[in-house]
């Protein structure tokens, strides 16, 4: 279970406060959506869960399965099961996608005390999972994300998520920049991972992704706080009324 308790976060560089006391819980096996307007702190929350530098946690805590992850390095969090699907996946010239996937998978296996995969086993796994997401051999041979279209990058994120077997998936604006067919492929990939041992936090500005990844709960994040929590119908309400109703509730 993911528990975020009264989390306050500011930007390390300029001291600007972004999260002003976020509290929410995602029980095992549930999918929760976080919706909110631009600048509400959605991406900050995603990065702070994954452990990116540049943010200062000034109060509160993030517990994953009862243990605080705030002092853990990003790779230790990954080993503990945390996976962030990036809004803007990073291009890494010179590192072949296949090499990267294998290095990441074996690093995680090692950290989790599992046996590393043999080359044939790895190839079998990657071929099967890549085919499900329409990731071609040619893409796997290219440097990681270099020259990939927006849709290809997001499919690669979901492929990584599938391969690395996380127990907490944070999807940051996975629908941004995608047409409806691409959203469906990516959402199908995420839905295949739904199950009792896995929690998901789906961050999105728009409701339409939630037509494909139907959440158990929806939280509205605005002005650095969760303003409202409800069922999946809350997303539809927001689609009609917009975020304007939360404007007056700034701290």
């Amino acid at each position, binding site marked *: 279970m993911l528990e975020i308790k009264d989390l306050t976060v500011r930007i390390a560089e300029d001291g600007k406060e972004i999260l002003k006391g976020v509290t929410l819980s995602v029980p095992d096996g549930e999918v929760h959506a976080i919706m909110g307007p631009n600048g509400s702190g959605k991406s900050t929350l995603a990065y702070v869960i*994954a*452990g990116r530098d540049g943010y200062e946690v000034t109060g509160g805590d993030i517990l994953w399965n009862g243990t605080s992850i705030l002092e853990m390095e990003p790779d230790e969090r*990954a080993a503990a099961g945390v996976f962030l699907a990036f809004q803007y996946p990073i291009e890494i010239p010179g*590192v072949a996608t296949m090499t990267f996937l294998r290095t*990441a998978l074996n*690093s995680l296996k090692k950290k989790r005390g599992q046996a590393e995969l043999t080359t044939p086993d790895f190839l079998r796994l990657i071929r099967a999972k890549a085919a499900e997401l329409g990731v071609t051999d040619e893409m796997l041979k290219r440097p990681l994300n270099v020259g990939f279209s927006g849709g290809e990058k997001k499919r690669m994120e979901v492929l990584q998520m599938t391969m690395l077997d996380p127990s907490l998936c944070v999807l940051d604006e996975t629908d941004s920049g995608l047409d409806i067919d691409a959203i469906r492929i990516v959402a199908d990939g995420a839905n295949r991972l739904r199950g009792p041992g896995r929690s998901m936090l789906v961050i999105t500005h728009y409701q339409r992704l939630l037509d494909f990844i139907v959440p158990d709960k929806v939280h509205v994040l605005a002005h650095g706080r969760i303003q409202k929590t409800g069922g999946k119908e809350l997303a539809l309400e927001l689609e009609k009324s917009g975020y304007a109703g939360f404007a007056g509730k700034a701290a």
Partner: protein
Amino acid sequence: MIVTLMKTEAEEALARQFAAVASSLPGTGVAAARRAAAMDRFRETGLPHRRIEEFKYSDVRSALKTAFAPADVQAPIVDANAIEAALGPVASLDADRLVFVDGAFVQSLSSSEIAGVTFRRFATGQPTDDAAFSAIAGANPLLALNEAFASDGAVISVDGARKLAGRLLVILYLHTAREPRRVTTRNLIEVAANARIDLVEVHARIGTAAVQTSTATRLVAGDGAEVAHIKIDREISAATHLSLWDLELGAATVYRGFQLTAGAGFVRNDIVARLPGADAKFDVSGLMLGRGDDHVDTTLVVDHIATGCESRELFKAVLDDRARAVFQGKVIVAPEAQKTDGKQMSQALLLADDVEFYSKPELEIYADDVACGHGATAAELDESMLFYLRSRGIGLAEARSLLIESFALETLEKIENDDIRAVARSVVITWLGADL
């Protein structure tokens, strides 16, 4: 004879050494007179220093504080196994070999016959071929110093009668000395029209003592020749390595040069290329690896003289601790050299706060229908890339080496021969793995 007061202890020592060893250096008559004339030219300038524009970032005078004694002309006996060990990954190359130990050719360690290649020692006969070094290279005082002291080297002709695919020749320069020594070699390579050769020049060290290396290579390729020319310098903290390549490429030649420098103290690599024939394709690239107080300089002049030639340069540096790298790349396009297509890039990866990278691209274009460009970057490891890799479970050290490796290894794509590229890769990985 022009007498100029020698200014530094090293310059005085060089003059004394020349007086002492000149008579025992190879060549008599014309050759001996040429050596004396070269020493006179050197005396006029002395060691190049930072007030000379081409040496602004690499002050040889202060790097070479003392001049080590010249190595004995008679090479010591060297165990073949010790050589294989010193060569590291280079030993695995399946190739013909010419081996020079402490500046002298060793027949017993070399291939006795090389198909399509005529070889003779620089030290035998009259090395009058030296007149062929180009005017640009000839203005470099380090070339004069090399000519004065050269003890041996390879004089090679590559036969154009048969176009042998995959012919691979390795020239090894090994340093075994237990006392600091100075080693001076000089090569002349002629590649006949339409001939093809892959040439690898390797500098390595067996001995424990510091070495001052001076090596000059003049390579002339006839029309339509195809030459791959690779230098791998793994002397590892030798005191100084001064290298000069003087290249002259005929019409429609395809030349691919590469220089890999893996941490060798103070290094100056001069490359001068003249393209007097039309439609030549010229690529010279390199990787400079430095840590500690290493200083690696690549200074390049490409002289486009004829129409339709292409030149490509990609030089990268990986710098840690207090290491410094210099890249100076001058491309001259003569009025007649229309349709010249030149691209140059230099990039440095800065791994510590105290490293320095100096990049100085220069274009001198006198023709009006050309496409020439250059670029330079210097950057630390990208934080967002590191975070991305780490968020996938890859530890900090491994993420760093993955990014450093990918930066460095990109240059090796310029080496077309798979075996040579694998060797170069291994040299790079070994160097990177030493303390990252």
